[in-house]
């Protein structure tokens, strides 16, 4: 376990490892994003990205096939796209589609292309697609009335299949889940006729703001969505088939839950709470979830 202290001058709001686990990006209220190279116990600051006017809430790494690309969402309402060129990170694009703080940003599975979804406090979700010609295609739509706090894409392949088809095939699904200040979790699917995304399912269960949602990478046949809420609970939503009925399982926590994250093999859930504790949860054969361990402070 490596512990890096005081990387930023203000609160850190997010950290993300890249596809290979070698690079770490952190963002903070100090309006900067810092990129580190991680090598076992050692870390080395590669670069500090400045460009936001407000605290940066979230960063997300794209799949390496697009290059070394990072997206950041900030309180200043902007989504910035950064790319590494010749060892330096430069701002590739700037999206100011929202009126309020962009609270979450998430890249879609690489099989779908270079697609990015952002959730904002203005209640809207924007989906930006980087086309081959370098231009962006943006779709914005209202998601949650008084603010959208989180967005997470579903795995590209149908749940249950290990082999992913290359590129965007008919099998690829364009779905994502959002969580909002209206206490709701919504699943959205791309509707080719409308050319936009529409709500598939609305999952109600929280009594307070949904702070984070996460769709599990599919190795197991089932679909798993985890939602974290200000009401100190995490709800695991499961469905046997992509459109099937969703069952929920409530995991009660001790404090406000800010974040949920699935492991890459999709069987372990990391839950981070307002009390600065991170716990790991696993599903038993009976379908119950039990705490496996916790990362000590």
């Amino acid at each position: 376990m490596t512990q890096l202290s005081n990387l930023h001058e203000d609160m850190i709001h997010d950290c993300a490892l890249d596809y290979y686990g070698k690079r770490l990006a952190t963002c903070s209220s100090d309006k900067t994003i810092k990129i580190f190279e991680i090598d076992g116990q050692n870390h080395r600051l590669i670069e500090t990205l400045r460009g936001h006017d407000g605290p940066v809430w979230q960063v997300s790494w794209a799949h390496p096939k697009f290059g070394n690309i990072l997206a950041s969402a900030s309180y200043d309402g902007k989504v910035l796209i950064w790319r590494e060129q010749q060892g330096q990170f430069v701002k590739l694009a700037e999206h100011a589609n929202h009126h309020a703080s962009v609270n979450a940003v998430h890249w879609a599975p690489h099989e779908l292309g270079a697609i990015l979804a952002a959730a904002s406090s203005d209640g809207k979700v924007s989906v930006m697609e980087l086309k081959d010609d370098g231009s962006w295609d943006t779709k914005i739509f209202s998601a949650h009335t008084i603010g959208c706090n989180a967005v997470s894409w579903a795995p590209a392949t149908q749940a249950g299949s290990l082999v992913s088809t290359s590129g965007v095939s008919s099998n690829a699904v364009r779905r994502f889940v959002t969580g909002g200040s209206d206490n709701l979790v919504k699943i959205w699917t791309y509707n080719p006729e409308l050319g936009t995304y529409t709500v598939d399912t609305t999952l109600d269960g929280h009594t307070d703001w949904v702070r984070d949602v996460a769709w599990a990478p599919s190795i197991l046949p089932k679909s798993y969505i985890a939602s974290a809420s200000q009401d100190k609970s995490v709800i695991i939503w499961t469905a046997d088939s992509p459109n099937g009925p969703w069952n929920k399982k409530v995991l009660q926590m001790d404090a406000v839950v800010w974040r949920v994250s699935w492991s890459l093999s999709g069987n372990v859930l990391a839950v981070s709470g307002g009390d600065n504790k991170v716990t790991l949860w696993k599903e038993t054969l009976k379908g119950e979830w039990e705490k496996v361990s916790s990362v000590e402070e």
Partner: protein
Amino acid sequence: MAKVRDIQRTAAFAWAPDASSFIATGTQAGAVSADFSDNTQLELWDLDLAGDPQAELSPITAVNTDSRFYDIAWGGVTKERPRGIIAGGLENGNALISQTKEHNGAIKALQFNHFSPNILATAGVQGELHIWNLENMQNTFRLGNKAARADDFDCLDWNKKVPHIVVTGGNGGFLTVWDVKQKRESLTLNNWGRKPASAVVWHPEQQTKLITAVPDDNEPVILVWDLKNSNAPERILRGHNGGVLSLSWCKQDPDLLLSCGKDNRTICWNPNTGEMLGEFPVVTNWTFKTSFNPRNPSYSATSSYDGKIVVRSLQNTNPTTTADASQSADADDFFSQASNAQASSFTLKQSPRWLKRPAGATFGFGGKLVSFSNPGAKQNIVKLSTVNLDSGVTAATEHFEKAVQEGNLVSICDEKAENAKTDEEKSEWKLLRALFENDTKAKVIEYLGFKAEDITPAEPATPSEEKEVDAGAVDDAASKSHRLSTFFGAAGDDSDNFLADLSIQSSQTARTNNPFKIYTGEESDAERDITKALVLGRFDKAVDVALAEDRMTDALMLAICGGEKCIERVKAAYFTKMAKGPNYLRLLASITGKNLWDVVHNADLSNWQEVMVALCTYAEDKEFGDLCETLGDRLEEEYRLDDNKELRRHASLCYLAGSKLHKVINIWITELHESEQAGLQESSDDSTFSVHARSLQQFIEKVTVFRQATKFVDEDKNAPSGWKLSALYEKYNEYADVVAAHGQLSIAEKYLDLLPKDYPAASAARERIRQATQKVSTSTTTAQARKTHPLTQPYGRAPVGVPAPGPQIPSQTGPYQPIQPVQPTQPTQPTPAQNSYQHRQSYAPPNPSQGYSSASPYAQNTMQPQTSGNYGAYNKVGYTPGISAQPTRPPFVPPPPKPSTGTANWNDTPEVVRPQRRPPSAAPVPSTSPFPGAPPAQSPQQTAPWGAPPPKATPPPPPKGALPPNRAQSPAIKPQSPGFSAPSYGAPPTQPNPYAPPPQAPPATGRYTPQPTAPAIGSPASPGATRPLGQGIPPPPQGTFAGRTGPPPSGPQYAPPPQFNQASAPSPYAPVVAPNPYAPPPTAQGAPNPYAPPPPGPHAPPMARPGSQQAAAPPPKPATPPPPPQPKHPKGDRTHIPSQYMPIFEILSSEMEKVKARAPPAFARQVQDTEKRLNILFDHLNNEEVLSEGTLEQMMTLSRGKLMT
């Protein structure tokens, strides 16, 4: 802030407490609507924040009230009332819900308790503060007493932390904190100089903090108080231009405070820092109420007297859109512009707390988890950890990897086999394990359960009718799964085809086209066993089984594959079985069994030829003889019974083939007799004797040829008795007699030699012959003998018979004598031999007593003739003159050329100092004793003779006389020697002469001298070389002489080596020395020559030698005394050394070798000398002469003793 909505009312409002964005409005008291309507309503509005911002809102519901509102409170969310309850504080003092009238005056403010939604507090004029319990409407109580307060309460607020605290404020300038539980005041706060308080709010999180607003236009301040210190406010927020009418402290973020007032502005503050964060767009009239949306504080609403309630969001990050919208609509309207001028771009820069994520964790590739947290202000931590997701997997992986690294997969296999749940798995693991062993194939076999031991041949059973299955061409060797019909069914033709096809071996690619079953299931146990054995490669077992089953042909086939052992077994079995079969089988059995004895013993004799041939073809060499013998025996026996001469012939053939002499002999003897008989009957002129002799001759011839042909070695020769060839011996004996009788003594001797030593009859004969053939040199015996001498001499057997007297003086060998041209007296002694001889001769006379008189006669006799090469004669010759010349000559009695080594032999033991010699005619003798030491007994003369080899012209010697003292030479010698030597040597080495003449004096010297002088070196050695050792010197010396003396002083003289050694010694000197300086030695003793000196030199010693010889039986091994009688065997020959004395030879020669190897060069001469002497000794040993047994015994002891040390 973006204006989200507005409601066209001038009303007091309240947010819906739940998540829905509803507002309840109540017509404001104190305001008149534009149309002066008298409607007072409570309306509910759905803000529909998600919808179109521009749309006009209309109330959802409206409730008429009878009075205007001062305040509305919406709260009280309970299970029964999920949407809460709206309470309105009315002008008429009613708390609307249910009309309850408690207040006497208007209710100015009311609020539901945050913690107990049923509790409502109302505050109004005249200081009335009532606490209502909605569940129990009857039970209200008033806090405080009537009279205490005269001022109105304008605002109130329940503490957000402590449920029972409520604060009220009014225009009296005092703030009162009430404890509802205790129903009394807790605290009174002087609002900073008794300023009126229009609004009061508690800190959302800190229970002792509160903020008050001052509606005074002169000091429109907002005071932040911490009640811990109620004297003065903590902070004063100034910014309003007019009195502040309303406050709203964001519940979720204490850093956000909204205030609005008479200056038409709504300002957002950070009360903790006192910073003014921004303000909403200014409106046209007083803003009298502002409030954060309790659930979503990014929204707030403000109502003002300008007839609108505006709902705004805190952020407007993209102001352009809205601004554009509004601008475009009223582009030209000044007022709208004015009013919208501040359609501001106010956006809250400071991010509200509710957005700030304090902690999180995300997974990364490789089981990594990165988590962050902000444990404190200015403290942030990022953690990277590796998560062990599934311990079971990791443990198993690690365990396995460790085993792989250790290379210990075998144990893993075992483990797995142990824990295997199914048999299949178990067997799989077992097999996997087997693969680890080097011998995979063996393991597989073992695994399959095939053991060779299981195969035991059953009792021979009757062969089953079932045809065998030939496990021949197998397509897939190990596979039993090939189940096909028995190919070898009854069909015979099929089998032919099959066999034919067999040659087309199925290859790997050729698929099954000749299917067959390995196990048909019908074969017998034996067949199964055989199959099993075949599969396992154990041919031996297969053979066993086959034999047991009496399947001979199969067994044979199997045996061929199985190797030698199998073949043997089968062979044996077969032969046993076929014992009654054809006879050739028996023969074959014997042949293959390499056991011909059976044939030999048992075959019928009429087939003896075949047997013989078989033996010839097959028998091994070592057995051959015996086999033939046996066959022959049988034949002979048969013959005896049959008296069939043919058989006898055959027998003898067999014997001959088998080299069995003893058997053949018998037959031949018989034949001999027969032929004799036949011969006798053949009347011829021959006498009986001759017939007999002839037959005998033939017989002997046959035998001899046979012996030569087969290189027959008579092993019995040394055996004391019980000879196989006794019959032969007899014949030999007989023959020898016959031959000897005819004067062929040597032949006789030869044959006698073939007899065993201990053959009684032989020894006498041998002796006799030996005697007879002895060299004349020493023995001057019978003239007759002498006569033969010349003949025999060459053999070195000079005086055969001469030395009658006494011991066999090693009959000096012929060469000896001749060499002794005892010249001295005869100037005409060219040949040293002669000299020596003469010497002898000369000696002789002087010693007639010695019996050498004969010698002299010899000498005389032969002298003349001797001139050259008449050894034998020489001797004698030599003597005479010598004798005469040197009276003193020591009687070289044993003139015999003895130590012909002449000078060279100075050191030699007086070879063969035959006692005879001794006799010594003092003078003449010397020469005869070539062995200086040897015959010391012999008397000085011997020595003389030694030196004697007078023939060796020991010319100088005489003159020298100075013979090296080594030898006590007989003075006699001296004079002679030179003389002798000279002449004798003539050419050669006069030196040797010294020896020759020495008989008297010189002899010795003669003998020695050679040594010392240069020449001596060379020659001496030889003849004399071994001198000191004196062994059978005679022979060697002779030889040497012969060799050396190139120019044989007297040619042949040298033949008789021994004495001649001396002579030869001289010979080497020859070159040095003029041939005959000594010729006239006697006369010219001194004169002669140059040689004189040298020779003298050498001779001197030799002279001396002889002398010393006599005296000293010299130093070295006084081995054999007598002169070198004619050696029986050539010099250098060692093969006839009797075995018991072999050690002497061996030990001494080895010692010699050692010395030779290590001697420093300075001693080279001595070394050579010694060697020569040794050689002489060996020769004597070899010839079995000269050395008496006693001496030999002594020598043995000596040599052995030497060895011991």
